[in-house]
């Protein structure tokens, strides 16, 4: 091969199982073992969920949107329910808000422990993967006991929640999180001190706070670079107003910091769950919710385990939403993988990708623009801007 061909040697990864069990296509240009350029192509699991909401009423849409993500399903339903409740000028009772946050924090524990196992597996540390997943069963069982389902819990209703926290539940949750807290301390020790594992994480994928700001990353990925960004703190919703969250940050910005941030966040979740159980408000679980929602638009932001989850909801006076727009945290975080890949060893790529806790199915959206002429076409940014100016003139 000539030197020019070697420079342009590109290795495709995916779309089948690039790192996780979801499809996405990556192309890495390599010079020997060193990555010199990276690109991504998403969209293999586009499901048309946003369009699907246009043919369903608000109640049905909530369950559809819950299925955007199989891991952080509850926050999707919570974001949608909070948004629709705001449009309908209805507020769920305090007990319902507390239960929403309680289930949300249990879900965060399950999501972070799942990620810990997956990321350890990517590093070839299957022992950590298997033990962390064994312990994760504890929180899965708690969620099943409370809500009735292991995944897609369907705990929310528009205007409240379905499930109550009984004394027996409270006892089970306390016992469960006591056990998990002990195990989490052990896993923090493992990821901070295991010499072999640290070779895969320390100093890999270092992202400075400036780079994190510039790339617009969210959630634990941003917090691992010292950017204190958390919707639960910046714009508290539901019971987070009464139970403030202590934001967890690390300064190193490498993969090790991303492990530590997520594991330390688990301790914060345990503290929050205990605080909510100690001060569980009494009262109803639901409030009356109108079937038709007056015309209006709103945004609803919540902190999913992976970062900021954004919903835009537009109502038109009927029982069906006019438009629902979802932005999941993987989309802003994906750019960081491409930016950080350059200069790293090719073997570090699966770990770098797993480091942002990507969820490909969640972030696949499609934008199609109907030109005034009638044909669907692609517009440039300038054309789009001009169209916007003309539209509102």
């Amino acid at each position: 091969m000539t030197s020019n061909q070697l420079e342009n040697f590109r290795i495709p990864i995916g779309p089948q199982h690039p790192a996780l069990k979801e499809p996405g296509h990556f192309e890495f240009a390599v010079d020997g073992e060193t990555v010199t350029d990276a690109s991504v192509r998403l969209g293999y699991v586009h499901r048309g969920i946003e369009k699907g909401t246009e043919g369903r009423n608000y109640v049905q849409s909530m369950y559809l949107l819950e299925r955007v993500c199989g891991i952080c399903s509850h926050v999707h339903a919570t974001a949608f329910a909070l948004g629709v409740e705001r449009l309908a000028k209805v507020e769920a009772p305090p007990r319902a808000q507390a239960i929403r946050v309680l289930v949300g924090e249990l879900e965060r524990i399950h999501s972070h422990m799942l990620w810990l196992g997956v990321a350890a597996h990517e590093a070839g540390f299957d022992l950590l993967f298997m033990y962390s997943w064994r312990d994760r069963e504890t929180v899965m069982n708690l969620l099943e006991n409370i809500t009735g389902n292991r995944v897609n819990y369907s705990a929310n209703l528009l205007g409240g929640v379905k499930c109550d926290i009984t004394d027996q539940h409270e006892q089970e949750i306390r016992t469960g999180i006591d056990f998990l807290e002990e195990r989490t301390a052990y896993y923090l020790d493992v990821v901070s001190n295991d010499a072999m594992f640290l070779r895969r994480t320390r100093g890999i994928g270092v992202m400075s706070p400036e780079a994190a700001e510039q790339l617009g990353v969210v959630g634990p990925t941003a917090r691992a670079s010292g950017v204190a960004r958390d919707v639960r703190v910046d714009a508290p919703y539901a019971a987070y107003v009464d139970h403030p969250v202590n934001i967890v940050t690390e300064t190193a910005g490498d993969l090790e910091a991303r492990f530590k941030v997520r594991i330390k966040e688990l301790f914060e979740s345990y503290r929050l769950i205990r605080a909510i159980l100690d001060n569980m408000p009494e009262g109803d679980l639901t409030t009356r919710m109108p079937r038709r929602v007056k015309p209006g638009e709103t945004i609803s932001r919540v902190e999913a385990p992976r970062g900021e989850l954004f919903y835009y909801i537009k109502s038109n006076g009927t029982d069906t939403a006019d438009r629902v727009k979802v932005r999941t945290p993987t989309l802003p975080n994906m750019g960081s993988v491409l930016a950080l890949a350059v200069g790293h060893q090719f073997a570090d790529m699966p770990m770098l990708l797993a480091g942002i806790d990507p969820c490909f199915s969640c972030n696949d959206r499609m934008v199609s623009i109907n030109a005034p002429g009638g044909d669907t076409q692609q517009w440039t940014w300038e054309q789009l801007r001009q169209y916007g100016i003309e539209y509102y003139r």
Partner: protein
Amino acid sequence: MKLSTMWKEALGSLVQRPATEKYPFVRQEAPEHLRSKLHWDLEGCTGCSLCAKDCPANAIEIITIDKKAKRFVFHYYVDRCTFCGQCVASCNKDCIELVNNEWELAALDKDNFELYYGNDADVDSVLAEPAEADVEEPITA
């Protein structure tokens, strides 16, 4: 820094019982609030069909035989049901229940996934009618 931090854990597991469950030889009792198969009670049903309207999976159909006499047949598609429990919340008359112990729903025959609840005579009359082509309506905006 330590070499091989988890070896104690791994060796300790050699003398422990497996964490996995021995299903189907050992069946754990289902949690009290587990949502499994749906049951419908004719008593009290007004045929308002809120359950069918709110079902996100189109798993419920209320067939009205005689509204004044409150004779309805509840057509339930077990294979479509996502066990979300919305129908239970939507029903104002507490006619619907998701029991916790009927969760082993796998079947070899597709007929097992369609259930009819109601008076025997009404169910027979519904079943006697020629079956309509079961084409799912595409959802359009």
